[in-house]
């Protein structure tokens, strides 16, 4: 891989120019924004940074975001594992339609995704009567934030698990089945451990997206301070109040989560490549 034959590669100066241009583009587009988050967060010093994180409103936002993630993740995992098993290990008519439907949230603008729940639970909403009869508040309250986040993050675990489970084939599962293992036992002992890294990446991406969702949550949250503000909404408020270093301090938490996600993906891919090259 390292020794490219001369016929297939460019003169050294072209290569150097292209690599230089690529590094410059990455520096301007990706590295500078990333560095800026941490530089602005720490601009007023570490005590100010910690104080911004310890504000009651920041803590309330953190708590709500944690709650959203705690509800969204298990649903995504159960649905994602089910989808990975049904769509990764079996063929059936209509399968490609189901796969496309799982991808639908990718096609929906976050604002439109949030709006769907306004149409369901708002003043003229289709489910308004049912929800009121039960005495529940959904819109402009945590339940709508959870629902909108579920909609947005629904594809992530499934998208990782379907191709992973598919590529692993069915032989080990069949062997387990022949030896008398039931469905849940096969899942727990064979299929999931094999697809563990795919599941883990799907989980982390799902977590990062659930904690960071902005557009959809912005529509349904009602922006009630200390009550219906998630971390990204809190960042927006601080930013709009010109409290920039506090805004970036809170933002640095979510940025750390994003960095963790891309590091895990990189590790996962390196493992896969090593796995492939082994006999």
């Amino acid at each position, binding site marked *: *891989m*390292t020794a490219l034959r001369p016929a297939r590669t460019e*003169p050294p100066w*072209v*290569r150097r120019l*292209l*690599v230089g241009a690529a*590094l410059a*583009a*990455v520096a301007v*587009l*990706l590295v*500078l*924004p*990333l560095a800026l*988050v941490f530089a602005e967060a720490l601009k007023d010093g570490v005590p100010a940074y910690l104080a911004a994180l310890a504000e009651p409103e920041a803590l309330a936002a953190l708590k709500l975001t944690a709650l959203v993630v705690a509800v969204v993740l298990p649903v995504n995992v159960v*649905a994602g594992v*089910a989808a990975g*098993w*049904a769509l990764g290990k*079996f*063929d059936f008519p209509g399968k490609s339609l*189901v796969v*496309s*439907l*799982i*991808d639908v949230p*990718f*096609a*929906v*603008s*976050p*604002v*439109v995704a949030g*709006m769907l729940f*306004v*149409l*369901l639970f708002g003043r*003229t*909403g289709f489910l308004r009567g049912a929800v009121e009869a039960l005495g529940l508040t959904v819109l402009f309250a945590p339940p709508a934030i959870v629902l909108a986040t579920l909609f947005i993050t*629904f594809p992530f675990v499934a998208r990782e698990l379907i191709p992973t489970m598919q590529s692993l084939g*069915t032989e080990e599962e*069949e062997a387990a*089945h022949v030896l008398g293992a039931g469905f849940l036992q*096969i*899942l727990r002992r064979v299929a999931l451990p094999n697809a563990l890294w795919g599941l883990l990446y799907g989980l982390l991406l799902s977590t*990062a997206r659930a904690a*960071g969702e*902005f*557009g959809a949550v912005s529509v349904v949250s009602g922006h009630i301070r200390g009550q219906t503000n998630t971390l*990204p909404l809190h*960042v*927006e408020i601080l930013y709009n109040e010109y409290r920039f270093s506090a805004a*970036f301090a809170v*933002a640095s938490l979510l940025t750390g989560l*994003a*960095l963790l*996600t*891309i590091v895990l993906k990189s590790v996962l891919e*390196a493992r896969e490549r090593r796995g492939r090259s082994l006999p």
Partner: protein
Amino acid sequence: MTARRRAARLPGFGLSLGVTLTALSLVVLVPLFALALSALRLDAATLRRTAADPRVLAAVRLSLTTAFAGAAGASLVGGLLAWVLVRYRFPLRRLVDALVDLPFALPTAIAGIALTTLWAPTGWLGRPLAALGVNVAFTPLGIALALVFLGLPFAVRTLQPVLESLDPEVEDAAASLGAGRRDVFLRVLLPELVPAWLTGFTLAFARGLGEYGSVVFISGNLPMRTEVAPLLVMTKLEQYDYAGATALAALLLVLSFVLLFAASRLQARSAEAGA
């Protein structure tokens, strides 16, 4: 055929498909159904009023042009990155490869405030540009820039596997027949890359069309000038103009479905060509 026969013996198909379909229906399909119902209930007068509203037209035009420009920029930079990452070995290569996913993992609002602070007339990059008389933040250029950031992973990650799968022998053959590097690139490599390149462009375009978080901060949000369509949906909702919001949201949704359908056709074609 054998795969199907063998797979049929594994247990849990009914249960797992049932769970998948139930979750899919409750989480995704029922809410979308609400939009479809609302759109069908719109009367002709609302549709005419929305379609003739200059503010709506300006927002849709701005969203289309900036999403197009952003996707084009992402495709150019992404093409360069994919090429360099697959073909050359250089320091920091793994780091660059990992960073490409940042726009996918970073919350959009944080990308939005970081890019705005960076490119504002007082920012690290905005200040030297402002001295040259170029304003990026709070102009359509800033919106396009945010969408380049957002679209980058789509462009790189669709091109990378195709570049990796190219058969080196074809290039060797062309070179041994006397083709120069430029001819090999334009006539041998480029035709293979175009479908994936277009797929990445289309995915970035669709994503950019509906984007809100990374755009609202850098756009400045002046009606008629720098107000994108998703923001106008938000404004209409806040004003309880549900009918107008529904019409615009339905338009956005149909546009991105068409784009994503086109992308999946392109992808299928490039997969066939690669096989």
